[in-house]
């Protein structure tokens, strides 16, 4: 018997009791959250579109047309072109590769690392825990944006560095959540039982603890995706993040900033909306996951 089967609710009374696994229950609740389901679909389509850019983009990523210059959105250039005559839809798709890659990679690294550290801290108790928490406190004392900017200056502003530096900042939030969950879980009977039956600590953490806190972990992962995408775009917008010729949505907006209030202000909308839509979808998915994993939270 696995630990995940423990808290299955049973329906009493006349209705034919249907045995549902935790996973089935979770899926049923998630699919009830229509907005989250739609968000999953949009996000997947969007991601495919970006990474299939070489196939579906109307122009080549390196195409410039200086003679054409900046034209407003039209049938050929759906989102218009910039002063260099670059097609904005094409740029948007290619920039999306970098923004999405950073978002997901940061979340993945931060979640795996944060979960590991959080589980260890929660399970092994005081000293590890204290060290971790004090360390996190330190990061709350200096504005994150400033730390990131300095770190990026230090290590160079490539996408790999951006990913690693952002992950370094975000794993602590995951670790804190996981630690809290593990602390409360540690006292539960089935963990005691596993311990009593001689299972090793690693085995208990991997087989019993982690599966039971997968919900909060996944919700936090979505938060990390959203925060990473926004933070990266902010840094790049300020010129402190991804450096050209690599381009993220933040860089596109940085280029467009100068056109605010001019005839080329249309350059502002597509990249901004791309960020907004992506982060909105990610957040809705997180919301759906939260409801699905923890039906109690629906009341709020």
């Amino acid at each position, binding site marked *: 018997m696995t630990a995940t089967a423990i808290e299955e609710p049973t*329906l*009493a*009374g*006349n*209705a034919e009791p249907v045995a549902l696994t935790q996973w089935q229950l979770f899926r049923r609740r998630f699919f009830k959250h229509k907005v989250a389901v739609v968000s999953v679909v949009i996000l997947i389509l969007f991601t495919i579109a970006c990474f299939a850019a070489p196939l579906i983009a109307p122009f080549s990523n390196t195409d410039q047309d200086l003679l054409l210059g900046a034209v407003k959105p039209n049938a050929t250039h759906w989102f218009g072109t910039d002063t260099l005559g670059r097609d904005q839809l094409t740029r948007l798709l290619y920039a999306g590769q970098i923004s999405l890659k950073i978002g997901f990679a940061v979340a993945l690294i931060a979640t795996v690392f944060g979960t590991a550290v959080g589980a260890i801290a929660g399970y092994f108790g005081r000293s590890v825990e204290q060290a971790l928490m004090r360390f996190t406190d330190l990061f709350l004392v200096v504005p994150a944006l400033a730390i990131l900017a300095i770190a990026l200056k230090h290590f160079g502003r490539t996408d790999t560095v951006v990913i690693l530096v952002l992950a370094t900042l975000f794993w602590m939030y995951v670790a804190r959540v996981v630690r809290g969950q593990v602390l409360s879980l540690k006292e539960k009977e089935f963990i005691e039982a596993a311990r009593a039956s001689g299972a090793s600590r690693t085995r208990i953490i991997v087989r019993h603890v982690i599966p039971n806190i997968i919900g909060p972990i996944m919700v936090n992962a979505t938060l990390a995706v959203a925060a990473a995408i926004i933070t990266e775009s902010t840094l790049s917008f300020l010129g402190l993040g991804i450096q050209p010729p690599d381009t993220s949505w933040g860089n596109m907006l940085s280029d467009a900033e100068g056109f605010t209030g001019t005839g080329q202000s249309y350059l502002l909308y597509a990249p901004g909306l791309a960020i907004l839509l992506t982060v909105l979808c990610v957040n809705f998915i997180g919301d759906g996951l939260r409801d699905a994993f923890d039906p109690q939270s629906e009341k709020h």
Partner: protein
Amino acid sequence: MDNPTATDLPTVAVTGEPTRAPMIGPLLSVRNLSVSFSTDDGIVRAVDSASFDVMANETVGIVGESGSGKTVTSMAILGLLPKTAKITGEITFRGESLIDASERQLEQIRGKQIAMIFQDALAALNPVYSVGKQIAEAIRVHNPDVGKPAMRERCIELLDLVGIPNPTERVDQFPHEYSGGMRQRAMIAMSIANEPELLIADEPTTALDVTIQAQVLEVLERIQDRTNSAIMLITHDLGVVAGVADRVVVMYAGRQVEVGSVDQIFYEPRHAYTEGLLASLPRLDRRADKHSRLHRIVGQPPSLIFLPTGCAFHPRCPHAEVPGRCDSERPELVDVGPAHQSSCFFADRVAAAVKVDQS
């Protein structure tokens, strides 16, 4: 003044009050009260056609396991149920309907004519206000003109009345500085601040240890002697009811299963559930041999969404005839003695079983 107790209590709260009119008929009357909530999983029938009366100066015990509808009933009386609750039936207080009353009218009744003592006083008292402030608020809501010194005086007197030592200091302390028993006393002080005609006490002793329980119950009784309040004592513990109540209503799964005087309930129970409850009480008059282990009602209380058919108690009942009447026909509450009703098809079997046990 035909209310002699007014002189016993500090008089601040009663100044300018019209004298209580003598009551004819019950103080509180509940008729066919049903409360249901619709949830994602189905409709929860929390209370199902409850009918009972509380007379002036009477103590009625409402007994049942958690989920039997006791608390929901009391919330319905005060109009404190959430808007999602579907309420049908009649609740009248001094002949006037509480179901039809406006929120404003209810606000004037709450805390003034009907007051409530909640279980778990630590949660039921606001952590950020001193106990004195919270008592004062209860008074001020209904008597806005009481001055500060008089108010403080009154709060101290009330704390003193419920047996809080050193009330002059304690009045300024916060709930978390009180012990469990003292918090419950403070709760009582707050509820009697306006000398209500009906006190609803919801599990007032549950979280307390046995000696403190007894003290709190004793305070309740003393208060009743002074104020002539009627008390509706809600509890899962028949033992608590034994020494205090005049009459007892036993509830199971939202339904009343037996109503009678305290003696009838204790010595002549006519419902299998009451019998089970009684048998699970530790008793001094029973010989402690190996045959008289503490009895336990088998099984779990039913889900209020999927109630068993017929009598809701039949899956746990030792006398049930299944298949038969018990799982097909819903038993009505019928007279089984003077002012004694039960909703059991086999009340006589229960009676016989109790006789055997008592002899």
